[in-house]
């Protein structure tokens, strides 16, 4: 059932550029995938393990900056910065994770915000990484390794591939022992620990994996956009967008973040084009309203609504089937 759903979603995404073509839709499709990627990465630690990180921008920015840093400093293609970015992100995850995972959930949320702001200010005042102006990518592609294309299509398919990989890994985790561990941690950590679940270790593993993929998302972002500055890399809104997309779709569900991105990215792009510069403000007012309503009425997100519906509608039939 899950595998079939996955194949259908994958097929729909592969076919999308043929159904709605033109640069506007292609760019939008690529952005949806990119946001879905970072939201799904957040979902690993925020949804499955239930540790709410409000500073995931740290990893996004690190991935983005290292990709452009190796280009600006040594003239290497930005792609070669990806492993370095992932490595640094994992290190940061360990530094934040080890002290805070011993404490209760709120500490982790606050520590992640503080570290994200700390690094944002440092980067914004560090001339080597462009200070407040940020870094730019190659203007003209030198070789194909620069992965600089004019059309959004190559990026689109690249993002489909990476997202598919991440969702596949998530699915495997869900089905494995680790998935049970994470669900038990999210449900009641103390009970999980008393049953012998290595709580700290698994939270840290999940955080490291999540950090790696967020860094990768950041690197892919600059490959397409070709530019990063402290706010678009490390800004608190970058983290917030990951959270709200995952939460709207359903935190802790496989396709939730993707669903959230499919709804919110077009909404954001539309308000931005409709209202221009003032649109950003309105977008975030709407975001804030959505998050509050979700928290108040539907903490499990849209996928939660679907699960309730499915349980009510499909359960009796399944039971009949088994009885027969």
């Amino acid at each position: 059932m899950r595998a079939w759903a996955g194949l259908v979603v994958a097929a729909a995404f592969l076919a999308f550029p043929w159904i709605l073509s033109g640069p506007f839709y292609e760019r939008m499709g690529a952005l949806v995938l990119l946001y879905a990627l970072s939201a799904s990465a957040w979902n690993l630690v925020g949804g499955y393990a239930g540790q709410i990180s409000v500073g995931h921008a740290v990893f996004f920015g690190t991935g983005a900056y290292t990709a452009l840093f190796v280009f600006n400093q040594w003239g290497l293609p930005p792609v070669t910065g990806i492993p370095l970015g992932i490595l640094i992100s994992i290190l940061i995850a360990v530094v934040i994770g080890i002290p805070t995972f011993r404490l209760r959930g709120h500490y982790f949320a606050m520590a992640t915000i503080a570290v994200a702001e700390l690094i944002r200010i440092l980067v914004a005042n560090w001339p080597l990484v462009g200070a407040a102006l940020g870094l730019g990518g190659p203007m003209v592609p030198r070789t194909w390794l620069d992965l600089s294309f004019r059309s959004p299509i190559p990026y689109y398919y690249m993002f489909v591939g990476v997202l598919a990989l991440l969702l596949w890994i998530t699915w495997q985790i869900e089905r494995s022992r680790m998935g049970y561990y994470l669900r038990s941690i999210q449900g009641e950590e103390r009970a999980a620990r008393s049953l012998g679940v290595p709580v700290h270790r698994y939270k840290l593993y999940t955080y490291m994996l999540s950090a790696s993929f967020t860094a990768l998302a950041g690197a892919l972002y600059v490959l397409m956009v070709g530019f990063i500055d402290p706010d678009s890399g490390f800004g608190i809104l970058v983290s917030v967008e990951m959270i709200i997309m995952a939460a709207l779709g359903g935190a802790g569900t496989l396709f939730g973040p993707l669903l959230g991105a499919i709804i919110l990215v077009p909404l954001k792009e539309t308000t931005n084009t409709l209202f221009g510069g003032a649109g950003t403000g309105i977008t975030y007012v709407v975001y804030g309203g959505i998050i509050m309503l979700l928290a108040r009425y539907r903490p499990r997100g849209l996928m939660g609504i679907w699960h309730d519906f499915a349980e009510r509608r499909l359960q009796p039939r399944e039971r009949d089937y088994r009885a027969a």
Partner: protein
Amino acid sequence: MGAVYALFSSGLTLIWGMMNVINFAHGDLVMIGMYIAFWTYVLLGGGPAVFGPLAAILLFMFGVLVYFALIRHVIDGPIISQILATFGLALLLRYAAFWAFSADFVTLPDTLLISGNIDIGGILIELPRLVAGVVALAVTVGMHLLLTRTTIGSQLLAVSEDRNAAMLMGIRPDRMQALAWGLAAAATGIAGALIATFYYISPTVGESLAIIAFVTVALGGFGSVPGAMIAGLLIGLIESVSAYAIGPVYKDVIVYSLFVAVLWVRPQGLFGRPE
């Protein structure tokens, strides 16, 4: 400055200590307090003696409203809905302020409260800051006394200790928790009005102030008003010293690093009880 930090951090620590909820919209309540001060001055021409109490009253009502409309429904839910609820509120307030007041920085005239500098043993202190600090300390101490020395205070603490037992004693937990939100928001509002007399006002000012409040609360120990007071003074001091010694840009860096260091070394804070 430190005393004002102490005041608005005590609001955050009150809510945390009472019901284990971190209010991510805290900095934005400060921002609202600052705008109340600004508009009272612009529209009515009132000084701090007018807008201080006004900010307290308006934010008290706002705090109670937020509790009944939002917090009451997520307080027993998973941690994610608590974080999302207050975070959503923060975004809503911050960007609604952008929309309503535009992103421009505004300031109140310097001479509003009292002007000039005072020389204490070779250290120059701006008088507005000094007066704001003294008022903030007085309010913080007042809040501490309210919590520890009055019936209402013991009722509040009873609810935070054991909701059901308090209910059996004839205390209404909902009312008490709404009161805690109101008090916390009012303290924050006064702090905002005080800061407004010497600090720039902008919709995003709450963001950095909120992080300072978190650092203060973490350093002082969650739920401890005296802890928040001492930590607030300490952070104000560290900030001014590092701004002077290393440069104003890096004062936030020092404060945030301090926060991470506290988490590593003494996660329960200087005055908190270990969990």
